[in-house]
């Protein structure tokens, strides 16, 4: 049957309405924020006399100390393991939040005719294909200059890492989770409900098990995407390795998350500092992590590939 779908039964309609409302309020919020930002800073589009350039850029040079600490035996350095720790912890938190937000959203996008679906698709897809540095920049503007959001003090903070990872990992995850739900016959739920199951039981006993391989693949993708995030984190959070230990909270120090960058950022910064061997070693670590996650997707995901 072609054409627009008719009204669904009341419960389904209520679900769709909630999802639509949430998605739209997010979009409206972002659009309004962007408009406000543009309007309030319009004078900056016309700079006065000259651009400002920091003199400090020329002052920094790698010291011998940096080189000697890292060149050999990087695994004996606490900063390295704090980096690994930070990457695993942030990527895992990101994956959990992304799943909590993204799996229901992917289900809604797959099952309901959400009005303006193409807008949502453009938003998510463009996050996947954008250079993540520009995603980070957008977040800086949003979080630094928007009322309410700037009170969160996310920019240049450790939770900021999760915020950036969340944007890219959710976009990645949703495309995989939506594909997983798309692959499950919608009639399974209709039949399950005609047999006496409520909507949640029908979802839990039929759709969820059928979509499981694809959902797990999406989780791994989201985790890997979060762990590999570089440009956005660098722009949004800068680096932490050089900050004084006292600037980190006791909890952070207890969890060994202080004075460390995610592995991808760490790799770049060490090479920048001249610690090429250390940077290369971390690069190999990242390649290994990516390869392991792809292997895991193939093993756990079974025949359900997401690409």
């Amino acid at each position, binding site marked *: 049957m072609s054409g627009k779908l*008719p009204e669904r039964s009341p419960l389904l309609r209520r679900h769709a309405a909630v999802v639509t409302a949430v998605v739209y309020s997010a979009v409206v919020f972002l659009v309004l924020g962007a408009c406000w930002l543009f309007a309030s800073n319009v004078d900056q589009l016309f700079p006065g006399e000259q651009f400002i350039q920091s003199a400090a850029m020329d002052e920094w040079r790698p010291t011998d100390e940096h080189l000697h600490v890292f060149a050999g035996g990087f695994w004996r350095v606490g900063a390295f393991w704090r980096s690994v720790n930070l990457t695993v912890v942030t990527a895992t938190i990101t994956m959990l939040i992304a799943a909590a937000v993204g799996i229901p959203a992917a289900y809604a996008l797959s099952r309901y005719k959400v009005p303006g679906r193409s807008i949502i698709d453009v938003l998510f897809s463009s996050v996947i294909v954008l250079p993540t540095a520009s995603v980070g920049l957008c977040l800086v503007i949003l979080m630094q200059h928007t009322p309410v959001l700037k009170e969160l003090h996310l920019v240049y903070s450790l939770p900021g890492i999760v915020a950036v990872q969340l944007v890219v990992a959710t976009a990645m995850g949703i495309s995989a989770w939506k594909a997983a739900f798309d692959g499950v016959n919608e009639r399974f739920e209709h039949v399950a*409900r005609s*047999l006496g199951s409520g909507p949640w*039981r029908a979802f839990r006993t039929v759709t969820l098990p059928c979509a499981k391989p694809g959902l797990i693949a999406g989780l791994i993708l989201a985790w890997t995407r979060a762990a590999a995030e570089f440009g956005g984190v660098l722009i949004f959070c800068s680096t932490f390795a050089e900050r004084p230990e006292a600037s980190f909270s006791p909890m952070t120090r207890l969890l060994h998350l202080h004075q460390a960058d995610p592995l991808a950022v760490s790799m770049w910064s060490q090479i920048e500092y001249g610690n090429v061997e250390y940077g290369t070693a971390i690069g190999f670590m990242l390649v290994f992590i990516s390869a392991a996650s792809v292997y895991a997707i193939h093993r756990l995901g079974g025949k359900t590939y997401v690409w």
Partner: protein
Amino acid sequence: MIELSDINIDLGEFHLRDIDLTINDGEYMVMLGPTGAGKTVIVECLVGIYRPATGSMRVDGVEITSLYPEERNIGYVPQDYALFPNMTVRQNVAYGLVARKLPRHEIDPKVQATMESLGVDHLHYRLPLNLSGGERQRVALGRALITQPRVLLLDEPLSALDENLRADLAAELLRIQRRVSGTFLHVCHSFEEAADVADRIAIMNDGRLVQVGSIAEVLAQPASLFVARFTRTRNFIEGTAQPSADGCRVTGPNGLELHSTHRAQGPVTAAVRPEEIEILNGVAASGPGVLRAKVAAVRAKPTYTEVSFEGSVPLVVHERTGRAGFHANCGDELCLRIPPDALKIFPAEESEPDGR
């Protein structure tokens, strides 16, 4: 008893209009019509996937229009059977009872009995993926029937099967329906399939119910040219009707004169089924209803021979194969007789060449 009254659904380009249909207890009702007629929409409406814009649905007098699907107790077998691929055959069949939270010692014997009665009790621990088309259908039926639904909805249950299996499984469906004394609503688009199983048929076209009745009633009194075409009437003659003592006289092209027992006046389309035209071999007859025509083609079918005539109007005649004294070869000129009671008369304005 299932009563649909005044159901309207708006699907954008497609509208379901004023559906009034009653399905009696223990009746095998077949709803049929061309693709896009709205048959599946009615089924999904009864299941509870769509809500009608207006109208009401009642089961045994109880209003179900605003109930959730799980509260309706309506069995549903979709076109692809939708067997749950993550469960074994046994778990599929037991699903409805588990959903109703029956204790295990009540579920097991019921599942066993249902699977035995459908001849699938050797498949307990197989996965749906590994079943044949016929086995899938029976498992889907078992899953739907085990909860003893008020009505079983079958959405094109035979269309996924190959031709040879189809007639067998149609007979099987009817046998099951008779055994459980269930009320069945079966959707299909083939008149032959409907004729195999139906107590009554409901013909739909373009979102409307155009005729409801038994096969014999619909064949004898098609409600419109569309129904006549849909039920395989092949011969249509444009003409003008004039009332006569026992019906009407139809004047067709090239001076053709036919008699009908139906009363009509003015421009009409006369329709006659191919098996109702008599071929008068070796008889030189004349008079109203008799015409001479030249055989253009002869095709032997399994149970009848299809003879195409050219003449004042092109006609197709089905003659029982092996009838004594019947012979026709290309180029023969034969006498044909159209009995007055076989000639159905429809107003001519309906005669636009609508898709069947």
